[in-house]
């Protein structure tokens, strides 16, 4: 009798493990962000790429004006393509560009920026990719146009001429 109970318990235990693993596989996108994130969490704390100092996101997001948050990585090829548009954005001077370095090696990231130029006013690191999820990011590159905590628009994939135009339009319209 005791043997039977043991047997049943063991089988149940393994079935439970099976179930959990199965579920875990069932959503291979287990790091899927919530859809419809409209507001960013300003209490998030990031480390700076260069000096590892901790920064609260809220301090970087400019009040009452636009900020751009760009999620990138040195290993991401489309990020190279969009780079020139980010540099253009920085040259607008009116807008605060924040880069989030996603699952990257520090050496590669710094090399990337020194080679292609640094379009960011501040580079933050997200080593394991969990913080980008708070933005609702599903991959790299992704760019967020933010106005005072509110995500105005989200661009999935590399920026290009038309997206850049779109960003500039939105900012202009708001100013009016």
């Amino acid at each position, binding site marked *: 009798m005791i*043997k039977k109970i043991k*047997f049943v318990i*063991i*089988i149940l235990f*393994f079935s439970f493990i*099976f179930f*959990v*693993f*199965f*579920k*875990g*596989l*069932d959503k*291979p996108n*287990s*790091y899927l962000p919530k859809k419809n994130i409209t507001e960013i969490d300003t209490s998030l704390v990031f480390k700076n790429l260069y000096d590892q100092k901790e920064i609260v996101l809220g301090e970087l997001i400019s009040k009452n004006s636009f900020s751009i948050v760009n999620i990138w990585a040195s290993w991401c090829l489309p990020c190279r393509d969009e780079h020139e548009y980010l540099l253009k954005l920085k040259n607008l001077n009116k807008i605060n560009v924040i880069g989030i370095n996603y699952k990257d090696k*520090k*050496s*590669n990231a*710094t*090399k990337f920026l*020194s080679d292609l130029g640094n379009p960011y006013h501040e580079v933050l690191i997200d080593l*394991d*990719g*969990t913080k980008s*999820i708070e933005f609702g990011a599903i991959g790299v590159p992704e760019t967020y146009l933010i106005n005072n905590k509110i995500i105005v628009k989200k661009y999935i994939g590399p920026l290009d001429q038309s997206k850049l135009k779109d960003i500039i339009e939105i900012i202009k319209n708001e100013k009016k």
Partner: protein
Amino acid sequence: MLNQIGNYSLYIALFSSFFLLFHSSYSIRNKSKSLDSKIFSALSVQTLMVLISFFSLIYAFVVSDFSNVTVYNNSHTTKPLFYKISGSWGNHEGSLLLWLLVLTIFLFIFFISTKNLSNKYRIITVLFQELIIIGFLLFILFTSNPFLDLFPIPKEGTGLNPILQDPALAIHPPILYIGYVGTSIIFSSSLAALVCGMVNKIWAQHIKKWIITSWIFLTIGILLGSIWAYYELGWGGFWFWDPVENVSLMPWFCLTALLHTIIVLEKRNIYQSWTIILSIATFSLSMGGTFLVRSGILNSIHTFANDPSRGIFILCFLFLLVLLAIFIFFIFQKKLFKNLVKPLLVSKETAIIVNNWFMMFFLSVVLIGTVYPIFLEVISGSKISIGPPFYQKLMIPFLVPFLLFMAIGPKLKWIKDNLSKINLNQIISFILSIVISYLIVKLFGISYLFIVPLFAVGFFLLFSTIKDFFSKNSSLSQKISHFAFSLFILSILFNGIFAKEFSSNMKVGDERKFINKVIKFENLKIIEKDNYKSLMASFKISDEKRSINLNPEVRVYNQPRTLTSEAAINSTIYSDNFLVFNVIKDDGYYNVRYQYKPLMMWIWFSIILLSVGGILSYLKKND
């Protein structure tokens, strides 16, 4: 053409598997006394076919046959021949083929080396092993076929990740796999022994060889992986508690426990159920590791192919095997010879059980640390990340009693012993160890007192294992392995505590002071190689006594375009000098990281010695 050869030989191997499955269950049912030569021929055919298919894949890599998808994705014509060959198992599909190859070769060796054992036992082992082989064959053929055609045939391949172009990493997977796959033989044969009711001394004696073989390969495989991580990843560490590393460590703990328990079974004929459970667990952990690594369920720095359909296949297969094992265990448990002799408290048997408890504890820590994030996420949806502090905080305190038992345990006798044997020598060496560790802590001004007992038991184990070399009561291989383990623990402790790190931005000609050393950045040159360009720096590190030159590199590989930094390491028996540099900005400054790591060589050396202990056990006749 190669693709067809590879593919068809796999199908023939699958066919032989089914033949073996039916034929062996048929001969068990008919209780045929004479062993059918058909089983031997089918096994030979199967091994040959898998060999052919494996070599056709290697050949496809060697001649850069880009009509093969796997070759196209992982090779390139400019790659050196050595890495073309190792590239054939450096990817998901090829590595599974390698796994299958080792499975079949092992079964073949098992079959021809067990002629003196009962036929029923041999056939049932073949039966279980064929179940595993069929699983892998189906998995390869239907979810990860390495012989898929590509048309039109591209002119050039996409290349092997340069970080994998490394001699240690080229042989790391085969060695590790031999260790993993060896556990499958242990699994099948322990189930067979259970069914035949022969979980006894004779079986223990015979399976011990397989356990030691797997253990040696697993140990060396893990070692090669760490050595690679040490000089290639450029972090200066050798173990990161990364899930993929943990996955190889878990079967190791289990196998180490089994290695000790099987000796008790061999000498005293007790702990039968526990031996079987450990055998099942070891293999399940090896397979579970494959699942965790290959399915992409883990979020790890090792990025392997992420394909849920593969994951579901391995998961179902794994759990079918586990359920089968549980059923067989419960049905045939009655057959286990009930040994009512309870081991006495002070005896070698008990000491080995204590070893097993510790192994199980370490195993649980690693297991929980690795899979708990998955469970938590599935059940509650929240994400956590478990890092080195978790493992260190949970494991280090328990090392103290563990090492203490390790020092005392081997000295105990079988069946019964008494503690009055603790003699003056031991007490003196114990006090001596405490004094030494206290002095070390005092002299070097280490702030955490907890290091004292850790050092003390480390030294105590070292002294008592050294003393054991002069006594006769245990085998040479055990003495060497335990001695090596004490060396290992001590070198890790010294290494961890006395390591020094320096990091700064420097340009050519700069000099920096660091403790009693001067680091000078002498020059920088560019070197062109076949498949990469290299930026080679020259650093001089000098103290009062001597100076060394270090030449770290930053390499730009052409295919695929990747940047790697090669650390420069100067190793002596006392310490390693580790230097790595990175390009930061265009203004001529480079980020330089220098690490002084004492006794690094001893960590590698002690692990090699640990395996040598295992190898030596083949040499001695059963005593």
